């Protein structure tokens, strides 16, 4: 059993207000982060953890959790968040909801449907639940806009959210942003007791790819775009624990909390370690100014040609991922009583080991 974070007790005392017998729902529990959230909840000693998962036929990430816990304390509900009926079944009697399910699709409509419509369904289902104490909405740090910020400036919870995600041509983040809007709307109109979490780049065993914040391989050669930028990493187990704590702490309703680990590496350092410990490959360093210029050209060509090349590279996108900011986890530490249990050097070691075994694509 993992020793819960400081102040966490399972009898509703202290900073914590959830009992071990309370029913906890996790959506997206079969995913990369969700399965770790389930695992953390079980290791904290919660006895009624319910997962709503699609019966995709794929084993997913939850399988190992199921094997490990022998299903003690874990209830799997097969269903689909697009079905209101499934949501009603899953939401019955819940005290805390961890909403991690998200739409990963190439289209805006697909991402919207699988992030926003699903969120509306689960919100409708839980909004009338008398026992509901907390709705933890897991979003993404990518929803912020750093367009008006200087390079190297601190990107924290006070920063504005990007208003034009269609222009940034990011269906996934668009879906996430619309999901956030719905949660805020339900908080305003129906008093939803929410906490909104925005993790940075979640990494760890289970996901072998290099984050695009380091660079891209779109054109057949790896372009190193991150250079000296700090990469806002959060190790999957640390991230999962912070998410869990966001559902347990008293008095943090309505808070928005960003999640990154301590000792964040710079892109160059991260890439060098990756190349030495996973596999070596050629990369071309490209300055931010040059890539921004190329993105400007791409964006203009896309508009001129009526989308003959979709605007996948554009100025807003370039700013978001390669302009370079600094990050803080002060609020997460203060409000959640959280600290990254797995240190950065150990996290990187585990990730590189996994990536090497998985013969990671760049």
């Amino acid at each position: 059993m993992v020793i819960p974070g400081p102040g966490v007790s399972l009898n509703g005392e202290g900073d914590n207000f959830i009992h071990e017998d309370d029913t906890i729902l996790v959506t997206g529990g079969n995913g990369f982060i969700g399965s770790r959230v389930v695992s953390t909840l079980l290791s904290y000693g919660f006895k009624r953890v319910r997962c709503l998962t699609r019966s995709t036929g794929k084993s997913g990430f939850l399988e190992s959790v199921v094997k490990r816990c022998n299903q003690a304390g874990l209830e799997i509900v097969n269903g689909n968040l697009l079905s209101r009926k499934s949501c009603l079944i899953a939401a019955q009697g819940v005290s805390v909801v961890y909403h991690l399910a998200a739409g990963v699709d190439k289209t805006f409509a697909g991402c919207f449907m699988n992030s926003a419509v699903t969120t509306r369904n689960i919100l409708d289902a839980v909004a009338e639940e008398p026992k509901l104490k907390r709705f933890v909405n897991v979003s993404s740090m990518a929803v912020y806009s750093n367009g008006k910020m200087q390079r190297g400036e601190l990107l924290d919870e006070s920063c504005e959210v990007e208003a034009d995600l269609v222009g940034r041509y990011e269906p996934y983040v668009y879906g996430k942003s619309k999901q956030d809007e719905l949660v805020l709307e339900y908080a305003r109109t129906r008093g939803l007791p929410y906490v909104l979490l925005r993790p940075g780049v979640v990494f760890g065993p289970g996901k072998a790819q290099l984050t695009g914040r380091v660079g891209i391989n779109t054109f057949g050669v790896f372009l190193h775009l991150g250079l000296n930028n700090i990469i806002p990493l959060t190790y999957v187990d640390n991230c999962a624990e912070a998410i869990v704590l966001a559902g347990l702490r008293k008095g943090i309703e309505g808070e928005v909390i960003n999640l990154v680990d301590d000792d964040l590496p710079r892109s160059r350092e991260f890439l060098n370690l990756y190349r030495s410990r996973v596999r070596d490959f050629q990369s071309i360093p490209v300055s931010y100014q040059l890539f921004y210029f190329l993105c400007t050209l791409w964006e203009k060509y896309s508009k001129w040609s009526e989308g003959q090349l979709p605007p996948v590279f554009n100025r807003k996108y370039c700013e978001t991922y390669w302009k370079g900011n600094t990050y803080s986890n002060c609020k997460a530490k203060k409000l959640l009583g959280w600290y990254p249990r797995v240190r950065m050097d150990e996290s990187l070691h585990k990730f590189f080991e996994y990536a090497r075994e998985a013969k990671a694509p760049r």
Partner: protein
Amino acid sequence: MIRVGIIGCGKVADQHAVQIQRIPGAEIAAVCDSEPLMARQLRERFNALRYFSSAQEMLAACKLDVVHITTPPQSHFQLGRICLESGCNVYIEKPFTLNTGEAEELIDIAQRRGLKLTAGHNAQFTHAMVRMRELVRTGYLGGEPVHMESIYCYSFGDESYAEALLGDKEHWARKLPGSLLQNIISHGISKIAEFLKGDHPRVIANGFTSPFLKNAGQGDIVDEVRVIIDDGHLTTAYFTFSSQISPTIHQFRLFGPKNSLVVDDDHQLVIKYRNNEYKSYLRYFIPPFQFAWQYLGNFSINLRKFINKDFHLPFDAGMKTLIESFYNSIVSDAPLPLPYREILLCSWIMDQIFMQIDRRWPGLTESF
């Protein structure tokens, strides 16, 4: 100005909206989806004037010239009918309807009301298909087609649609009379239907489940189909649908009495097979050179179109051409881009295929 409405605001609607916005003189006046959030997001992204969650309300509130129906096929007939009865011309995504009976009824309503109707057979209007059609029109084949081969492959790869389909037994595509096939094969069948004579060709179909799907526990989905078609007027065709052929090719081969043509939709190539005989060893040197020259010519055409911002992805380009031709047929009373006969024939052939490969009628599949 052509005022357009869209019913069904999912992924396919995005493709329609993008292409409609590229057509001068067309505006998206209203969008509609039974899920209001979906209608609202499409309206926001494409600056449509209004959004609705009821088709009847939209049709009553907005004066629309054309309605695009991009909902799951189970609702095509019903929605098509109410749009026609409201006085709108209608573009219905493929598959046009669930069966030929519904298709006939819709076409009948359109004709009686003096309205126009088309099906989302945009693969018929890719750049390569348009070039092929022009060659056929100018007599390149040297007469009526003798035989055709349409190969339409599909990859289960990482496509989100396939994942959704395989993972969800309740997915609408699985509930179609022809299951997965019905949502895909019209692209390959319509190519053949265009050149067949007669209304009821002989169709012999065999369908089975690939080992890939069997191993994935999806033995109820037929993903391999082989079809022989004979129109009774000396034109025959083979149709192949496969999820296992690699690469996932989309080709149409048209064999004439004098010359033949191959359309490669994946690379937007039209290759001519001329009836030129060369003596002795020359046949091994001159034709390969000519083929190389043809490929270079195709490269040149594609590049020129790209530079002139007139290429786009083949199915998007095909959709724009189809929509533009359809709107033109409404405004100028020009002929429809897809004759009703072709839509009905495509539907009829598909009905025959589904009936024969339906597991409930095993005797028919064994007779292949």
